[in-house]
């Protein structure tokens, strides 16, 4: 094998490695877009008929979205505040994010199951744009839904989809994330029935969120404070920009 051939093979291997690293990672919506402050998301208090817990999955959805097991615990502080309420005033681009268990604007019909709209003015000048509204409409009559209250951890679940996992996924879009190719992550674009795994964010999801919000927590509550050099950490998300979490076990520090 000649030196030229080896060089070409090494180059191809490098390109392949870079390509794989690009492909198997979180994806941000383009152009990158973020909220200036943590949005208050109104979750349709009418709920879903097919969820037979106390309120049609409304409380389950709100709790899942606000949970520290999801986006608010990803390392950038409180990034979203969900609360149940009326969606009677549902309007795209009005600055009031809403999650509808229906389709108030008649946009999602036929083969559409869920549609997300993001609204923003032109860019901030640094290549990013400021989201000031995002609304989700759904066409959910074609699917049978459940919740953790109805079927805890899959018990009793029969070909149903967990509303918590799907809506935590949709809120990822609302925050500016696209789909990932990391199987098992919340932002993976497919989920099987009776699997509520997407309600809990994974490392790839957290990396994506922190790429958008780290150092600039939308909530401004300090929850996104990062660790400086030599301070303890669990993973790279805990470290301030430019630092990596190194070490093993309980002895990891930012460096």
């Amino acid at each position, binding site marked *: 094998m000649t030196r030229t051939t080896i060089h070409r093979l090494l180059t191809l291997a490098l390109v392949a490695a870079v390509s794989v690293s*690009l492909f198997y990672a979180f994806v941000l919506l383009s152009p990158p877009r973020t909220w200036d402050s943590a949005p208050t998301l109104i979750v349709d208090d009418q709920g879903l008929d097919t969820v037979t817990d106390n309120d049609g999955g409304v409380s389950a959805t709100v709790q899942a979205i606000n949970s520290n097991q999801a986006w608010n615990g990803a390392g950038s502080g409180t990034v979203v505040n969900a609360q149940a309420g009326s969606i009677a005033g549902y309007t795209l681009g009005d600055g009031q994010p809403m999650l509808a268990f229906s389709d108030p604007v008649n946009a999602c019909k036929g083969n559409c199951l869920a549609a997300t709209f993001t609204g923003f003015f032109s860019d901030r000048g640094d290549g990013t744009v400021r989201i000031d509204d995002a609304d989700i409409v759904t066409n959910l009559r074609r699917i049978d839904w459940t919740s953790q209250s109805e079927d805890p951890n899959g018990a009793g679940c029969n070909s149903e989809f967990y509303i918590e996992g799907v809506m935590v996924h949709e809120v990822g879009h609302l925050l500016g994330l696209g789909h990932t190719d990391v199987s098992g992550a919340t932002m993976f674009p*497919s989920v099987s029935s009776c699997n509520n795994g997407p309600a809990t964010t994974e490392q790839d999801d957290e990396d994506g969120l922190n790429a958008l919000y780290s150092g600039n927590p939308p909530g401004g509550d300090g929850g996104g404070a990062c660790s400086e050099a030599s301070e303890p950490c669990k993973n790279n998300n805990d470290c301030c920009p430019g630092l990596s979490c190194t070490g093993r076990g309980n002895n990891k520090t930012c460096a």
Partner: protein
Amino acid sequence: MKSRNVVACAALALVLAVPATASTFVAMSPGEMIQQSDAVVVGEVLQVESFRDPSGRAVMTQAMIQVEETLTGSSPTVVIVETFGGTVDSYTVVAHGFPTFTVGERVVLFLDEREDGVAEVVGYRLGQYRLLTNRLGQQIAVPTLEGGVKLLRPEGGEAVRPQAVPLSTLKAMIQQEARRLHRDF
């Protein structure tokens, strides 16, 4: 490394970095698409205009299409096609996964005409192809479905996505399917 390889690598990186979007659709077969369409046309986008709908609750866009060829069904020579999203007074609403239009582009559209005469694209972006010309001068129909749109099979799991094909191939497929369905063309 030759410059040609550098360009290829850059193109690869760009392909892998396509923007993701955030809506979910059920896949439709060509037969289902044609059955739900009043017409399938090839045309050019003459004009695009965005506005708030009369209720004020949504930002819409209407595109005026000059129909060059009707592949199946019947269509006027100029069609108004409506979709969600657009920019009004410098404020943009992105309707992820919905068709978008640019003046001057040529498209293939599966159209469903409403009672008011305005048409909608059947299957959202499944019913829209952009026409590009390759180096050989061949017209290629490129699906507008973005990489990040979730496309599910009706029975569950992810669906096979439409691929770019020569326009002649797409026309033949549409006309063959229309013939099978006893549709006029």
